[in-house]
């Protein structure tokens, strides 16, 4: 719409003469003039609703006075608006008094009523209801989110907000918009997944759809998470683009796929941690206060959900903590290999806990302490001196009740009992603790198989990428020019990963520096004397390395393109093609030698 076509209207609000565009509501104009009109059911991103009537103002048009809701009443030329006339105040008081009768405990209502000097109601008071039926949630879900997961049920005084058939709304995308707009806190987002959350933040995923990826991200520009962005889920919302003054929001931006031609590739695709839900005996996801080492790291971080405080699910400080080593590692049931890093990080966790809760009882339940590396053993010794209890025996089970007859139950219902066999004492033990931290092992990245397929490299039985030679070529793969580094190749700690990464980079650079690649001299070659031009080889070559010389009527193999599979050699009916290093006579000689 062109600016010029908008009609400007003159009006007076509380004695201030102003202009407004045709179609604007009184409330919009008043907001512009910083005139405060109270509202309860209004939010500028949903259509005016006119349910709470608190925004009622007095207008005078052509000498006639009326009370109208400012949120939905459109300005008219020559209109005189009084937002705080005696009549208006009287009305608001009456309405607030009515609200107080039903919503006496609702903060937003009480506050507003108090502003108008209404602290008690003359009307019969009812048990306080949290929902004031403002309908913001319903409208947000409809107009902004587009999910329509909420609606009003029944009518009149029985009216209330609910989901379809009072059940779990299928169309709900769990965006939390309803809870966000709810002025009374009546709507909360409940985590109904099986994992009881330790931190709401963890359970809800990455904060809001728009966020700066992580603290100190460069560039420090917020991104929109397309998986949780309402607009990208339902096509609704779009509020951010409405409020962004520089107009920097672009929903059309897509992930783009860039194709690059490269000479060498380093695969450093990392790992994922073992999911302890697979080991049900440890109660992860089932018991509060059983967390993974990574979750501890998150909590321990100064910008984490607890600001670095080490607390239990109920917010209290744990006085005893068990750190269980080798969860998912060195275990025939899950992964047989040692994840290499867990011993050291478990020691670090113990140290951090000692710092945060100096009087806590800290137990490390280990199979073997594996501390090779610079300064590692020394750190272990330091921990021993810090009074951490080391128990040689793997944690077997975590439960809420003691299972061993010998265990004396502790008079606290929030204790967790960690069962283990203390192999040094030679007896089973059960430790009552406040919190259990599972030192989860390292596993190949979730898409390792896919990556291996794409890059045509091999994986080891445990799923990590296979190096060309475990000792002599630990960063090479069987595919020339493809290198692996870090945990993609197998569990390793940061120094090892850095070393391997540097080595892989150097190897890749050496290829770049050389500028040319030495091929193994095992390509195939056509004997032009024998070749009759039957073209069978042209059909079989997957690389198009064979061309046909029409003049000589023979096939010709391009050495640079030939990858030396030898398929054409076998296929050549006249035996005109031979593969260097793998010609028929050589193979037959091998055969003869083997069968001698």
């Amino acid at each position, binding site marked *: 719409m062109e600016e010029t076509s908008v009609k400007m209207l003159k009006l007076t609000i509380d004695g201030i003469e102003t202009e407004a565009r045709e179609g604007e509501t009184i409330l919009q104009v008043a907001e512009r003039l910083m005139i405060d009109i109270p509202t309860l059911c209004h939010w500028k991103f949903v259509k005016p609703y006119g349910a709470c009537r608190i925004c009622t103002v007095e207008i005078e048009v052509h000498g006639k006075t009326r009370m109208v809701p400012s949120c939905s009443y459109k300005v008219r030329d020559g209109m005189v608006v009084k937002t705080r006339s005696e009549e208006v105040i009287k009305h608001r008081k009456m309405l607030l008094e009515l609200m107080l009768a039903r919503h006496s405990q609702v903060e937003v209502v009480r506050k507003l009523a108090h502003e108008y000097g209404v602290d008690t109601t003359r009307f019969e008071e009812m048990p306080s209801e949290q929902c004031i039926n403002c309908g913001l949630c319903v409208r947000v879900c409809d107009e902004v989110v587009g999910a329509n997961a909420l609606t009003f049920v029944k009518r009149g005084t029985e009216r209330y907000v609910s989901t379809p058939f009072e059940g779990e709304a299928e169309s709900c995308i769990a965006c939390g918009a309803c809870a966000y707009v709810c002025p009374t806190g009546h709507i909360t987002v409940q985590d109904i997944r099986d994992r009881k959350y330790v931190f709401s933040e963890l359970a809800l995923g990455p904060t809001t759809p728009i966020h700066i990826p992580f603290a100190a991200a460069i560039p420090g520009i917020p991104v929109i998470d397309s998986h949780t962005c309402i607009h990208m889920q339902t096509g609704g919302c779009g509020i951010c683009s409405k409020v962004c003054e520089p107009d920097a929001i672009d929903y059309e931006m897509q992930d783009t796929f860039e194709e690059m031609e490269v000479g060498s590739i380093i695969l450093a695709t990392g790992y994922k941690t073992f999911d302890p839900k697979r080991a049900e005996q440890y109660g992860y996801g089932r018991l509060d206060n059983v967390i993974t080492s990574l979750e501890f790291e998150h909590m321990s971080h100064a910008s984490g959900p607890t600001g670095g405080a080490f607390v239990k699910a109920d917010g209290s400080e744990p006085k005893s903590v068990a750190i269980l080593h080798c969860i998912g590692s060195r275990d025939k049931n899950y992964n047989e290999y040692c994840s290499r890093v867990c011993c050291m990080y478990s020691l670090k966790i113990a140290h951090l806990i000692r710092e945060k809760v100096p009087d806590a009882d800290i137990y490390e339940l280990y199979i073997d302490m594996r501390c090779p590396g610079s300064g590692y053993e020394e750190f272990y010794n330091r921990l021993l001196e810090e009074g951490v209890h080391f128990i040689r025996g793997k944690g077997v089970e975590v439960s809420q009740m003691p299972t061993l007859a010998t265990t004396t139950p502790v008079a606290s219902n929030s204790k967790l009992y960690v069962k283990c066999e203390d192999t040094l004492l030679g007896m089973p033990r059960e430790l009552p603790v406040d919190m259990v931290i599972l030192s989860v092992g390292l596993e190949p990245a979730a898409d390792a198989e896919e990556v291996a397929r794409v890059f*045509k490299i091999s*994986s080891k039985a445990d799923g990590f990428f*296979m190096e060309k030679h475990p000792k002599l070529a630990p960063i090479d793969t069987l595919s020339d020019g493809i290198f692996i580094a870090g945990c993609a190749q197998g569990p390793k700690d940061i120094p090892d990963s850095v070393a391997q990464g540097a080595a892989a980079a150097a190897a890749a650079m050496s290829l770049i520096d050389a500028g040319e690649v030495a091929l193994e001299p*095992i390509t195939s070659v056509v004997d032009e004397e024998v070749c009759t031009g039957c073209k069978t080889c042209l059909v079989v070559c*997957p690389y198009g390395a064979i061309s046909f010389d029409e003049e000589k009527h023979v096939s010709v193999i391009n050495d640079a393109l030939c990858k*030396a599979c*030898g398929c054409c050699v076998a*296929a050549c009916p006249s035996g005109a093609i031979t*593969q260097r290093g793998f010609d028929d006579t050589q193979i037959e000689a091998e055969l003869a030698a083997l*069968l001698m």
Partner: protein
Amino acid sequence: MADITTAEKSPAKLTKEVVRFEPRIIGFLCWWCSYAASDMAGTSRLKYPPNVSIIRVMCSSRVDPAFVMRAFAEGADGVLIAGCHLGECHYVSGNYKTAARISLLKKTLAQFGFEDDRIRLEWISAGEIRKFSKVITDMTEKVRNLGPLNWRENFEPK
């Protein structure tokens, strides 16, 4: 292995029927997958019978059926060809050629009076070291049960 050494060292045992027939099997292994698997199986100390003698090829599609026939003619009791899984050929499509050739070869060999188990085509990826050892073990046992082929005895005049 123990069997063989024992048999060699104590001639007395040779006279007994209990001497086990040790088949000679030629294995044509693709460098990229099954050969790598055999390597890994070795470094992983996986056990499998020593009856398969391995010839490394760059791709299973290098295996000319003539090699197989030659192997049998020269005295092999079985031939194993192993390559990458279909669709995962290092050379894009080589193993499809192998599949077709070996299939046709098996059909032909059947007419020559070969038991099906004497020639075997397997897809073994580099990671499948257990499959590799399983295939070797299984094939050795099967060929052992079939008995020696002794192809030359078919036609070499006595």
